[in-house]
């Protein structure tokens, strides 16, 4: 006889307690960031607008290897390799269609020279779709991005004008196989 009554009182108390706990949230700190007025903190590794960086000497890092274009799941990257008189490879054009880009960061992971990097900027809305296609002059920045000291041609074994084989950092001079006589 008394058991269902106690049960009902317990149920009612549970609801009243819930009401009180929710009411207490009147005074709790709000989680909302009023975005256009206050900028939220963007983490450095946020995957936003894509940039092409330069090495510490101010030269283009991109060697037009096409790995980013291959890795891109939505095929939004298009580029064409060309070579300068010193033997450095660089992209003749480099085009990212941001209306397709899903900011997955696979291009950054695929890039062997830290050239392509994603930045915390996300405010890229445009009124015209054609304006979402960014060319190399729009993508290329003057800094080194997240990797300040990396310079591909200074650590790689490829010879270019002004740096022959064996002259890179941590690189042994090339072995003369014909001199390896017993």
């Amino acid at each position: 006889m008394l058991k269902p009554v106690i049960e009902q009182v317990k149920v009612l108390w549970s609801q009243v307690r819930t009401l009180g706990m929710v009411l207490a949230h009147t005074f709790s700190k709000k989680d909302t960031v009023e975005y256009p007025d206050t900028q939220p903190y963007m983490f450095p590794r946020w995957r936003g607008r894509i940039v092409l960086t330069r090495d510490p000497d101010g030269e283009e890092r991109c060697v037009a290897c096409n790995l980013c274009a291959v890795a891109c799941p939505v095929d939004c990257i298009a580029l064409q390799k060309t070579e300068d008189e010193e033997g450095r490879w660089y992209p003749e054009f480099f085009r990212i269609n941001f209306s397709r880009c899903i900011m997955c960061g696979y291009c950054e992971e695929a890039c062997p020279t830290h050239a392509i990097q994603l930045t915390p900027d996300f405010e890229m809305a445009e009124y015209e779709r054609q304006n979402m296609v960014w060319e190399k002059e729009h993508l290329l920045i003057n800094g080194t991005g997240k990797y300040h000291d990396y310079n591909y041609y200074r650590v790689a074994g490829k010879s270019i004008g002004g740096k022959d084989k064996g002259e890179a950092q941590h690189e042994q001079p090339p072995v003369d196989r014909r001199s390896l006589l017993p």
Partner: protein
Amino acid sequence: MFEIEVGSALVMGMVLGGVILISAWLIWLERRLLGIWQDRLGPNRVGPLGLGQVIADMFKIFTKEDWVPPFADKLVFMVAPPIIMTSILLSFAVVPIAPNIGIIDLNIGLLWVLAMASLAAYSVMLGGLASNNKYALLGSLRAAAQMVSYEVFMGISLLGVVMLSGTFNLREIVESQQDGWYILPQFVAFIVFAIASVAESHRLPFDLPEAEQEIVAGFHTEYAGMKFGMFFVGEYIGVLLASALMSVLFFGGWLPPFGIGPEDSVVAGVFWMLLKTMVFVCFFVLMRAAIPRPRYDQLMSYGWLVLLPLSLLNLLITGAVILSRGV
């Protein structure tokens, strides 16, 4: 015609306009309060404090396509939404706002309110039936059963108040509370009435007729534009009506608490009435923010097995006390 007295054109216009304005503004209030209780801010962009949000919503809803599905019963489909608004607005006719403020003093005021609340059930039922959609049908089935069964003890719980005051006239009920509000002797009745009026206005946690997680949007699945808007505003007027009734029946209407201030001043009366009503409106929103929706069988068994015996018991004890005191 333009003097401040019950039923003059000026007072009628003020009450009608006030009710519609406040219930439209409740949309903003609810969104803001829900936001606050969910650690958000709610709409705060349009105008000061986001008060203009209601106007923006109005513009949006008026520019929506006014679509009637080809498979629906067109006449009933169109007639259903205005019924809920009219019937609930008609209930406000008998609600006394302050001394000399009100539309009409019926000697059957409380019965009128209950009758009009029953008519509102038709709106939901017909809307769901005419939509010719399974989810709408399910919603209107639930609405019919829920509203009919919760009306039973909604009426019974109010009988205690009627017995204590000896009248069905809402203005006289308020005036008879000058010695003490009915919340103390009729506390159980207040709880039962509060729960029943939530179910009656099918608001969360008793919004089973439109439970969006189970049956899309229930009875208004097929409604869009202003026809949906009328259901929507009708719901808010229902909340306002339930809150106004709670303050009139149990919290002394326009009478000031603890006798502070004049009892027969119109301005003070409107102020106290609005304050009390708004507190209950906020409580409605708090319930929406906090309490989960019960299962349908739980809703029904709770009504018939707990609330009905409780209200009958309350009626019995009230009657016994009145009898023992001697008339």
